[in-house]
């Protein structure tokens, strides 16, 4: 254990802080005033797209976990927005870097990083949720093209996206994991219909997407025909890293502490209620545990199990922090949307509801427990049902 920074890293931290101080007027309330300009600025300084090669529009630095961590901490401390982090940047770009063709990398990565192309992810289907490999959307050969038919669900940003990265079944006669391809196409291709999927939050954070004979060139397959399952797992690995991020949880806990210090009931501050305070301290211990667990996963090669528990524990903890905020607010906690008594623009209420979606999405809590038990503890898999 040595948590001190080397002189080089300390200098780097000072550099990041100086940058944030110099540019503090370019964002307000945690959002950039001009998102694309902010993104360009961050990439130019290596605070976004840091390790992506320059020829693809990135900064081109060597991977350095600790510098990445220093950047994240400095941005949180300054309340500054990070670079863009849609599914294109956080999932498609790393996947293309790993398995894409040279042509695909040059064509898609630069405009994605610049924020000029928004992507959506076409994975889950009505009959393929936890059992993703059971997906049925089919891609039938027609000359140099595929004709895609079927439907996807839980597709975030489909209504805004220009492009989709999608899993389709190209080899219907092969075993289910071997017949899938990973393919890219524009959302304005004829035959695509997007229907917003309104959730309990009152907003449509997701969509359903329907395909009827959508014509896509075979050249748009990434990583080889029939290799889509392996390619998708590359992407899922990046998604699980995003969900349950301890830095976000820590920021949320800080907001909760401020809320409990500022709000009063009958003239008594919420923090002065011993029951609420005890719950806050229980959560604070968990937030610290996840923070240090996160630090450990970055630098300890024996931390395999510690890595496997992040999604399960992190998403649950986020939900519990929001739940305490709702409880502490009391009757104010039921207000939503707008009104003079509403606190934090209803953010706590939205988080409390939407976090359930994050506990379920990206591999449900139950799937996570299977992964922890089977890969982490070596417990036997459930026997396969014959014919499934």
């Amino acid at each position: 254990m040595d948590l001190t920074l080397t002189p080089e890293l300390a200098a780097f931290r000072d550099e990041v802080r100086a940058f944030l101080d110099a540019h503090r007027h370019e964002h307000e309330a945690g959002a950039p005033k001009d998102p694309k300009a902010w993104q360009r600025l961050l990439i130019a300084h290596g605070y976004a797209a840091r390790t992506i090669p320059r020829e693809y529009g990135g900064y081109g630095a060597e991977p350095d976990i600790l510098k990445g961590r220093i950047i994240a901490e400095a941005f949180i401390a300054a309340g500054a927005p990070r670079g863009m982090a849609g599914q294109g940047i956080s999932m498609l770009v790393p996947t293309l870097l790993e398995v894409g063709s040279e042509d695909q990398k040059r064509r898609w990565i630069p405009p994605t990083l610049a924020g000029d192309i928004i992507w959506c992810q076409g994975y889950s289907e009505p009959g393929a949720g936890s059992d993703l490999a059971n997906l049925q959307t089919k891609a039938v050969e027609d000359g140099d093209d595929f004709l895609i038919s079927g439907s996807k669900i839980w597709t975030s940003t489909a209504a805004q996206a220009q492009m989709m990265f999608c899993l389709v079944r190209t080899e219907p006669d092969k075993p289910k994991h071997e017949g899938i391809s990973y393919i890219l196409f524009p959302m304005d291709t004829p035959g695509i219909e997007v229907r917003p999927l309104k959730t309990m939050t009152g907003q449509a954070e997701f969509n359903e997407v329907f395909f009827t004979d959508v014509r896509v060139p075979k050249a748009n397959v990434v990583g080889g025909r029939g290799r889509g399952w392996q390619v998708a797992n590359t992407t899922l690995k990046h998604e699980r890293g995003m969900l349950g991020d301890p830095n976000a949880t820590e920021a949320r806990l800080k907001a909760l502490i401020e809320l409990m210090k500022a709000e009063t009931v009958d003239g008594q501050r919420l923090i002065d209620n011993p029951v609420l305070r005890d719950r806050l301290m229980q959560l604070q211990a968990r937030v610290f545990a996840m923070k240090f667990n996160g630090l450990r996963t970055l630098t300890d090669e024996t931390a395999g199990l510690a890595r496997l528990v992040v999604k399960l524990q992190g998403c649950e903890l986020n939900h519990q922090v929001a739940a305490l905020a709702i409880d502490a607010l009391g009757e104010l906690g039921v207000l939503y949307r707008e009104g003079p008594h509403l606190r934090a623009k209803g953010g706590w209420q939205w988080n409390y509801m939407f976090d359930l979606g994050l506990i379920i999405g990206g591999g449900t809590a139950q799937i996570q427990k299977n992964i922890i038990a089977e890969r982490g503890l070596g417990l036997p898999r459930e026997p396969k049902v014959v014919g499934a």
Partner: protein
Amino acid sequence: MRFALSEDQAMLQDSLAKALAALSPLERVRAFAGDLKDRGEDVWQGLSEFGLAGLAVPEEFGGQGLGLLEAALASEALGAAVAPVPFMGVVLAPLALTRGGSAAQQADWLPRLASGEVTAAVAMSEPVAGARDDAGVTALGGKLAGKALFVPGGMAAGLILVADRTGGLHLVRGDAAGLGRSLMPGIDETRRLAELTFAETPAEPLGNGRDLLDRLRDAAWVLLAADTLGAAQTMLDKAVAYAKERKQFGRTIGSFQAVKHLCAEMAAELEPARALVWYAAYAFDHAPDEAALMAAHAKAHTSEIGRFIARTATEVHGGIGMTDLLGLHYWFKRIGLNRQLLGGPERVREIAARLQGLAA
């Protein structure tokens, strides 16, 4: 920056675990638990030869001069083995003497502590966890009066550090006049608790003020947290091993999600707690501003997840988990004692809030 054990630290823990497997297997623990005349001297002797007694004693006094992280790793190994060793004094007495003792006190005690010739105990339950049954010690003119409860290792210690009602610390020799000891029979038979009485008992003051006691409290909380971590890890390991071997309905029970998810939940609670305990120990040595808060959180949080793992691991074993034959209950009770000693989680969390100015 590296958030991981060094090679030396990992080796210390590993070699201590191996030494304990030889010195204190479950049969040895069982014999100790069943016989109050058994003082576990062979186990202590073996561990002293291993170097455990001098772990926290500075090198110039014959010890190894290691920090609280190493001590916590040792505590974790002792908890994992439910070893019948009163470890708290091994760490806290050198710490108190180093930070608050006079040159004469250091020269008098530290070499004998390092060799294992003398064992130490710390009586600080009243000012830390609150006084029960009118306990508490008053110091006047170099003499102590009153009683101190819940003193681990207090039955046999040759040196006793006593915190008085105001938080001041005193050194009492094991053979001091007016010192009485009686056993407080408890659930955890691997570590005996003493009630100490003082009647005009000669004592030397140690350090000045409450601050030293607070640091001893922080270190004790980290050691208790680490002991629970080790005990909980063993319970999880045993539950997983049993789930892989036990068959019902023609399948190993670990292939049923109802059982495997219990195991996953235990691991998911335990792994992040390990990082918290490491950090709390590290902070004690290197980040004094955070040390008290992190120690409090480590103590309270391991108490909570320890309770969950103790009951869940027992449940995974089914009926056999309850039996003395299996002996799982030694770990269950060890975790139970660590939870209550020096403040249950509610009290400790209230102190955590106070340390941040969130409670009066």
